[in-house]
């Protein structure tokens, strides 16, 4: 399964004014890391509301880029250290892929 949907991501970027592509990438990276961590904290704290909230926000974020791999990890069991590590790796890989796709569209 691909990390993101490249066509959707590109069409998303291309539909926006070029000057906001870079801020969008930064915001995406920040949001993904932030809400990913919130989800892990909520799972660790066994807080169902917080888990639901975090998953919902991540879903909203990932939907912009078809980032189904992150969603798949988020929906899985995140109790073990291995699973949490994989989740982190998945988020970082997704961010890297989005940045790589966006790079040519960012005005110099």
């Amino acid at each position, binding site marked *: 399964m691909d990390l993101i949907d490249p066509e959707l991501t590109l069409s998303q970027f291309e539909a926006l004014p070029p000057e906001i592509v870079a*801020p969008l990438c930064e915001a995406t990276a920040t949001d993904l890391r932030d809400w990913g961590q919130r989800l892990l904290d909520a799972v660790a704290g066994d807080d169902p509301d917080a888990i639901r909230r975090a998953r919902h926000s991540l879903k909203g974020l990932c939907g912009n880029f*078809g980032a189904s791999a992150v969603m798949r990890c988020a929906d899985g069991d995140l109790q073990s250290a291995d699973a949490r590590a994989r989740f982190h790796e998945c988020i970082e890989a997704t961010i890297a892929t989005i940045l790589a796709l966006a790079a040519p569209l960012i005005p110099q």
Partner: protein
Amino acid sequence: MPGTPLTRYTVPTPVAIAIEPADSAAQIALLERRLARAEAARAAAEDLLEQKSRVLAAANTELTARKESLSTSLERRTRQLLDAQRVAGFGTMLWDIRSRQLELSPQVQVMIGLEPGSAVKTYRSLVRRLLREDRRRMLHWMNRELLAGLTNGRCERCEGRADQAQTGSCEESLREYRIEVRCPNGDVGDDVRSLCVMAQFQIDSQCRPVMIFVTVQDITRQVRADNEAATLRARELQRLQDLEKLNEELLIAREQADIANDAKSRFLAMMSHDIRTPLNGVIGMLSLFDESTLTAEQKRTLALVRSSGDQLRVLLNDIIDLARAEAGKLTLSPGPTNLVDVLTDGADFWRHLATEKSLSLEIVLARDTPCWIDADSVRLRQLIDNMLSNAIKYTSEGGVMLKTRVLPQRRLRIEVVDTGIGIPAHRRAELFTDFSQLNLLGSEPGGAGLGLAICQRIIEVMGGTLGVDDAGRGSCFWFEIPVAEIPVPKRVANPVVRSFAGPDGRTPRVLVAEDLATNRIVIEGCLRKLGCEVRVVEDGQQALTAVESGDAYDLVLMDMAMPVMDGPEATRRIRALQGALCDLPIIALTAFTRPEELAPMMAAGANDSVAKPIVIEDLYRAMSKALAFPVASGNAHRFINSSH
């Protein structure tokens, strides 16, 4: 050789000879010599005669033996022929046309009820042996058909030309005439014997008919079999006609039943719609209660009313679906569907219920699960929801797992495995019938028992199958459907970019409430492309404040789930404002797409919704609709959509 006299040859007596006295001695001598020669000749002749007699006798003996042999052979063959005729129920007749005499074989005599050797010499006497009702027909056949080809005793076709007859080319002589007649059958009570009579002319060298050779075959069994077969056919035909008549009656009854069923379905659907509309109003109004002002008892009562309202709405939706299915109007709207999204959305929706019951809810997707398929996403989600809700409802500990498996021949299997009470094998069939509740030990009552019946109908329309297996501990509900994997849908690379502009050249002012920075940037970018002025806030409270501040906004795009104050609450409060502000168009932004999920926002007063991820064309369409609607007086203006 007995009975065969031989021909005897007798030598004639010597004649008297006159002798003269004068030369008597010489003459005597001469006579004696002559006599001696005559004696010798007679002896030789007698020898010859004796020899010939012996030869003739031998020849006679041989011929007699041959004749006897032939006669014996002929007798044997005649007997064989007669035996064969008897065994085959077959006989022959010869009718001499000139003498009008008949010669019947013994078998024919038996067939027509005569003792063998009885005298039936004429054709008319033969005809009298037949059943009365067949006699005229037989005579007619004889006179009109059999003899019609003959004129004045000659073959009409060749007119008696001998050459043709001799070469056997006269077709008239070769033609066969056939008739079936009946005669009393003395052997079997008053039954009749059926005979097939076939005749052929025998002609002389002048092509004149001299004889008619007739074969007679006993076809009683065949006719009886034919009659029985005809009777059976007639009965079968009658039965078929009866069945057709019954079928017609059934069709009419079915049409009437269908009409009644349609009427019932229409009635149900209309009633359900008519009930659902005010029910939505009731549920919507319930959400307007400010719970902070309620006592604990009032809150419990309110929760109960909300829960009952939700159950009633689910039941009504099920009834409408069932009525639609029964009316054959359950149709699919296939299109590009992100299967992974459908599965995760479904799981997300039910996760809170699972969490409340301390159940785990996991998704396990097979590695080769297709991402994009051509399917009806709404119906697919309905299936997932139904199966997940059932699994959670009937599981008190452990968890629920949503799994996918890719099968050969482009089929996808989706399983919902639970650790619940399980279902005995002998009761599984009941699961898929309308209004079926198994009431198993340990299960919680709830629902109308329509869910799986509706699922089955949807899956049937999809060309798939639905089933349930034992999962060791709990149950495994599954369905298999054909899926067509499709490439990631291509999006319009350069969509037609439109913008809003008022008649005075003013652009709409849009307030966006969204807590996620990424989404704020995306929405703001889209709105700028659409030519809007944008202000972005991060939660519902800020949105309410912005509206109350007196800034003239034409539209609010409101996220549903936000910190501090969520979208439904902010919308309710805006609708509660005084003056024109309460009519401000509000469009909900949400990743939720199901009516139930959107219900809180719509009940709070949102005009419309746009699904996330935001697609600029969808946003434009919803905004066009909302902005074309006249807003409150004093702030009313229509925006004209223009392309550039």
